[in-house]
């Protein structure tokens, strides 16, 4: 896999470096030869379907489930074999794992007390942290008396209390209601930016990863599929898996005709064909929002006529099923703005001219 091209990251030296990490559970490889660098102050998301190994990787970084082989370095030190208590991180779990019999204050102070800090210092620190996560008045309540979102903030404050060099978040927002989740997503990101703490978050929610991460590590079946900024991942997926997993994608089978040309049905499409030889079977991918309806007389490349099928109303736009004879009967989903639908008075069964901009088409080997 190609290394991530995080624009901000490259100039800094890696804070966390993972080299050839493998984790076996019996004969099952949960992680295979993972290598990854994470830079200081970066917010990185491990994104993938359940069972892809993202949580296993996080737990290996924390030392909670140490890898079978491979190296983990943090701030230049080899921490591969160290138990969690000898590493430098704070962690927040999906379940919050707040101590139910301790008040919010005592939960937040939990890691401070054992460090033999003066009582007044602890109290000041706890107050500061609770203010930071927006719960200044809730210190004397018990976790069970708080809402899920509030509990998650307390867990965050507790993890940050000891000023760790690394913050690990294991699906921290998954247990929350959709509304709270969106709100907290923003807050966590703001907090991370303000504190400048290097953060790794595990999530299966692509929207969460796209909105929060500086860089996303897309994982599947124990390997890294792609590392990149949200925009790179979305715009330029390196594998069919990433293209399919992030956002919505149309896939149609095709054959390479020559440099920059792929044939789909009776249609020759202009698009980039890196290193694929003529005659190779490929999968052509294009996002629904990149299916354009040409305006006026402007000549567009890759233009053809398609018949409109089902139109699903999704609020700000329609997602329409298109069927193009020229494409050999393969269906295509397209996002059509309300304006276009209204202006053309589109209905089921109408013919519609569409175009696929060549620079938006991705071609993957194999069908």
């Amino acid at each position, binding site marked *: 896999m190609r290394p991530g091209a995080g624009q901000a990251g490259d100039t800094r030296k890696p804070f966390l470096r993972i080299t050839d990490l493998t984790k076996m559970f019996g004969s099952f490889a949960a992680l295979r030869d993972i290598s990854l660098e994470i830079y200081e102050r970066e917010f990185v998301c491990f994104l993938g379907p359940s069972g892809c190994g993202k949580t296993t990787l996080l737990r290996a970084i924390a030392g909670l489930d140490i890898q079978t082989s491979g190296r983990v370095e943090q701030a230049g030190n080899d921490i591969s074999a160290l*138990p969690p208590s000898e590493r430098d991180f704070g962690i927040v779990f999906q379940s919050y794992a707040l101590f139910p019999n301790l008040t919010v204050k005592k939960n937040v102070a939990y890691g401070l007390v054992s460090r033999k800090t003066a009582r007044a210092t602890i109290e000041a620190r706890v107050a500061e942290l609770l203010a930071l996560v927006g719960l200044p008045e809730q210190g004397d309540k018990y976790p069970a008396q708080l809402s899920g979102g509030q509990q998650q903030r307390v867990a965050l404050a507790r993890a940050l*209390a000891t000023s760790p060099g690394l913050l690990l978040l294991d699906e921290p927002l998954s247990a929350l209601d959709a509304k709270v989740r969106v709100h907290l997503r923003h807050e966590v990101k703001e907090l991370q930016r303000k504190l400048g703490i290097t953060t790794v978050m595990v999530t299966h929610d692509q929207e969460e990863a796209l909105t929060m991460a500086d860089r996303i590590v897309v994982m599947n079946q124990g390997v890294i599929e792609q590392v990149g900024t949200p925009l790179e991942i979305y715009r330029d997926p390196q594998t069919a898996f990433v293209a399919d997993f992030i956002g919505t994608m149309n896939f149609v089978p095709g054959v390479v005709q020559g440099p920059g040309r792929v044939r789909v049905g009776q249609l020759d499409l202009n698009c980039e064909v890196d290193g694929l030889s003529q005659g190779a079977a490929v999968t052509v991918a294009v996002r629904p929002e990149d299916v354009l309806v040409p305006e006026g007389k402007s000549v567009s490349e890759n233009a053809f006529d398609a018949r409109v099928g089902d139109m699903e109303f999704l609020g700000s736009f329609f997602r329409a099923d298109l069927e193009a004879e020229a494409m050999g009967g393969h269906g295509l989903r397209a996002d059509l703005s309300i304006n276009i639908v209204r202006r053309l008075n589109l209905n089921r069964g109408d013919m519609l001219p569409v175009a696929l901009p060549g620079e938006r088409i991705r071609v993957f080997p194999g069908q």
Partner: protein
Amino acid sequence: MASQAQAVAAPALAVQPKLSRDDRIMRGFIVLVGVWMVIAVVLPLYFMLSKSLEDRAGDFVGLVNYAQYFSTPALFYSIGNSLTIAAISTVITISLAFIYAYALTRSCMAGKGAFRVVAMVPLLAPSLLPAISFVYLFGNQGIIKGLLGDNTIYGPIGIVMGEVFYTFPHALMILIVALATADGRLYEAAVSLRAGPVRTFFTVTLPGIKYGLISAVFVVFTLVITDFGIPKVIGGQYNVLATDIYKQVIGQQNFQMGAVVSVVLLIPAVLAFVADRIIQGKQTSALTSSSVAYAPKPRRSYDLAMTGYCALIGFLILGIIGMAAYASFVQFWPYNLNLVLKNYDFDVMDGGGWASFTNSLRLAAYTAVFGTAIIFTGAYMVEKARGFGAVRGAIQFLCILPMAVPGMVLGLAYIFFFNHPDNPLNFIYGTMAILVICTITHFYTVSHLTAITALKQMDREFESVSSSLKVPFYKTFTRVTVPVCLPAILDVSIYLFVNAMTTVSAVIFLYSTDTALASVAALNMDDAGDIAPAAAMCMMIFYAAATVRLLHVLVTRGLARRTQAWRAR
């Protein structure tokens, strides 16, 4: 992808995880629990097995003793007797307890709380007590002797009646849990599909409680076949395995044959245990978070019938206890029915006197305090330690092993092991310590499983969070785990206390003149014909157990009130 999966077969540089101080301490504790189990269960059983293969001089003779056992009808007839008694008692107990549990969970009768308490009363009495009561009720001079016709209570009838009384609450507890966790939606579906009550019972109710029912059967069967007190008091000439061990060891000083009978008794107990384990393993929770609790609807005649049934059972339970209580005050049964306290003057009788009662209290207190501490801490380590998987699995197994060992067998095995002249632990023989160790071990499994259940409900990331905050595990253990698990810890301690008060089987071989126990004293007084003082001693045990139980209820209630704020959801 698939080809890549095979390519990483041999990892290059395997990581050897470094152990933290926490890891080392926890592993140390786990090993200690293992050592305890080896010393308190495995080695004694091994010594007993080898004893059964030796002659009186201590030389190895192979299966000679077994051959002798199976060629002596007076001995091997007991196998049939034990199995018969266990089978009949199990059928009766399960049937009675099932209807009682059904009434408590599936009817709208009044006074459910009181009926539940009454049904648990037998737990507070030693198993001798119902037997003594039945002697007063149906014995040669019994007040309702006529009800038995020409049959004698001294024999199988008396044993079965006693065992039913003694095992009733054990079966009831399991069946209540099984019946209480029903999904109301299934019953609504059955009604909407026009299934009649009988069909609903066989297609919804019975499958739902299948595992609980089977578990109850095994528990009762094992309790009966291993019980010693009831057949000892009321069995007459009807021999069972548990009394045979006693007779061989105490009566004839034939330790080898005692060991043989113990091995024979161990077999059904182990089989029942293994079968129960297999079935428990298959059980998965039928309830999901979307289940709707079953709520019975009032039906006048049905509820009334259920009330009548429970009242009858409750009356019988209280009547049996009441009979013993009454008899313990009677001056000279049945000729002089004046109520006096002379039967409580234990010091003038053989058996150990009042000292035996205080010894029992001491034993129960030590067992409760040390037992709870050891068992809960051990369960915590086994459940929450990081890595060390193989050893933890082995210790888990050792912790549930004691359940398969009948008390009589355990006690006899202790004689062989701890009284061995070459055993460095020989010095604890005849002391209170061996009684405490034996009793903790005897009741280890249920306590361990209670602790494990409570610990499993704790978030498994508490330890992860603590170590990330550099807080040693023992601080989290004392600040979080113990307070949150306090109800379960109290349950374990009361369970140990009550059982230590009432048990006879294991300790009968291990007490000395200095450490005579109340339950043993009752047995010996009954043996000597002092049946009224035996009843009195049983009642003292009952009062002590009941008092502690009441205290437990009050403490638990107070605790619930104090911790309401953080338990509320």
